[in-house]
């Protein structure tokens, strides 16, 4: 047996039908998707940070390598000068 609808049911049923035409304002879906896109901005930031750190490490290693090469070159030059000096001394 179907229960008879009371005034409240009738009122809610009327409002249900009357609000069926409700819909979002223009551009709502695009605003939602822009909010979703905005979630990825920190990931870009993280990427830039990681890239920057990698560059820093490479630069530091390059500096160390350059220093080592510089010291070795200087040592070789000093040894060469010393040898030359010795030979000149010997010739003299």
């Amino acid at each position, binding site marked *: 047996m179907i229960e008879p609808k*009371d*005034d*409240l*049911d009738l*009122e*809610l*049923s*009327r*409002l*249900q039908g*009357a*609000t*069926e*035409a*409700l*819909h*979002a*304002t*223009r551009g*709502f*879906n695009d*605003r*939602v*998707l822009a*909010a*979703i*896109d905005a*979630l*990825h901005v920190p990931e870009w930031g993280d990427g830039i940070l990681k890239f920057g750190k990698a560059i820093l490490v490479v630069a530091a290693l390059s500096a160390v390598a350059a220093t080592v090469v510089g010291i070795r070159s200087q040592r070789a030059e000093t040894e060469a000068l010393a040898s030359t000096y010795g030979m000149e001394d010997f010739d003299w």
Partner: protein
Amino acid sequence: MEHLAEAVREIVNGDAKAFRKIVVATSPRLVRLAARIMGSVEDGEDVVQEAYVKAYRAIADGRFDGRSRLETWLYRIVTNTAIDALRGGTRRPRSTDTIPEPSWDGAAAAEARVALRELETLLAELPPDQRAAIVLKSVEGLSAAEIAEIMDTSEGAVEQRLVRARTALKQRNRNHD
């Protein structure tokens, strides 16, 4: 709605753009639901946008396990976000006009907004959980079992909320007669 399940898989695999399919397919019903609970389209949109952000994060992180249908799961997020918004008082100030201004979407939508204000006035004094329950039952037409799943509670608790809400609304109507 197989294409929505496919969209979920694409998002999990890193294709954020696939979320558009979910938004396009579900936003009309979700905005209507949220507007009915909140009492205004603008507040409803705020709720649905927040709910979509939560849903996207959950899907992308692999926290949507697919045990419930995507639509039911979104209904749950929207309903709970709306209840939180009602409890937190984060609603936009209402216009004092009794008739909404004609908008781009014509007379039918304007009439719907008038009806939404009537619904808002009718439900204004109900606590948020009773308000959501009565909208889901009497306006959205869901069963007590479906509402229990959405509100993450038992059918008995849903029935109790509905009885309390109906009692309060009938009392309100008697006082206004």
